[in-house]
């Protein structure tokens, strides 16, 4: 059994190694399953979206250093019930690459997180809502670049009812305490 497992591992390693060498077969950036964020009616909340750039590639940060570079941008579709607020991008890493060792590019590699602020309207019904959007990115490796891509993005927002506002005690009649 051990030998069989070792053999399987050997085969898989060779396959994975070979695949890695073939360049991007699919999207260079993938999104992790977003956590369901519970938001109270009328209250803002931040939704963290996690992305992973495949090993060996980099994508421009949201603020690349050159006007000619294409920034990574998350566009969230507007919804009628949830107001989409500010999108917060992480700082990129200043890195230089083999194709331009003297130049520093501001990029994302590995895992990075983008926060989206959402605020359901007070009038919206409680329940689960899907928010959709796209992440535009443009990837390169050490020797080549690839045309810009749009990664579909979606996340769930669970809207909870706002707690009833505490009522002030009505003025009591002085006669009660007599």
């Amino acid at each position, binding site marked *: 059994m*051990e*030998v*069989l497992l*070792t*053999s*399987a591992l*050997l*085969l*898989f*390693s*060779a*396959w994975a*190694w*070979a*695949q890695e*060498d*073939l*360049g991007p077969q699919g999207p260079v950036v993938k999104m992790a399953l977003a956590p369901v964020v519970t938001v109270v009616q009328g209250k803002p909340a931040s939704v963290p979206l996690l992305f992973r750039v495949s090993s060996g590639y980099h994508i*421009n940060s949201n603020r690349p250093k050159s*006007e*000619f*570079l*294409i920034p990574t941008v998350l566009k969230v579709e507007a919804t009628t019930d949830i107001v989409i607020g500010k999108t917060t991008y992480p700082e990129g890493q200043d890195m230089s*690459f083999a*194709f*331009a060792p003297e*130049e520093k*590019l501001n990029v994302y590699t590995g895992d990075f997180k983008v926060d989206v602020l959402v605020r359901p309207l007070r009038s919206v019904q409680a329940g689960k809502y899907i928010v959709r959007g796209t992440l535009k990115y*443009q990837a*390169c490796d050490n*020797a*080549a*670049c*690839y*045309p*810009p891509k749009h990664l579909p993005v979606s996340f769930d927002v669970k809207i909870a009812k706002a707690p009833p506002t505490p009522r002030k005690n009505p003025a009591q009649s002085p006669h009660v305490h007599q």
Partner: protein
Amino acid sequence: MSRALNFLWAYGSSVTRLQSPDFRNSRLPVKRNPLILFFIAAIVAAMLFAGVRVARTNRANAPPKGQLMGQLAPDFELPALDGKNLKLSDLRGKAVLLNFWATYCGPCKIEMPWFVELQKEYGPQGFQIVGVAMDDASTEDIAKFAKEMGVNYPILLGKESVGQSYGGVSVLPTTFFLDRDGKLIAREFGLQSRSVFVDHIKKALSQGQAVQARK
């Protein structure tokens, strides 16, 4: 993967059974030789990796879509930054380096100064570089970029359809080399060393009926 494992399992069994003198009548439980299994797996893994490596090499040197290598390069007419149209077939008689690039492409920026030098060096021998910008950027931005790079060869505003006619340009830079007859003789994906370009240019300049006619 499971098929391969099943095969290995079965093969390991059969080899062990074949070694037995009375394997035909054997009802004994089948013994599987772990070493043979491992040895076969190692060979298969090595072949798998080598196969993909060869496939990759072949892909890099493979003719464009439609087996066009050695054939006439797909013709096109595109607007250049100077406002005039350039038709590829009008360059017949010259060796051509056709470079698909984009303003966002860092490796493309490395090649451009080389191209400027190569155009100066080999231009008098009948060599022409043509850049095709596969960009969403505005014409002004592309022109600004080209000016900053000191480009001394025509830059055309590319179209997806032109890229498709060359097998799809999904990697930038992608560079094709045409001989004097307009036939595709080589292509390169990604950043290459300057010497690779020089070799292809020399080959392109020395090939074609136009060269024969000169002799």
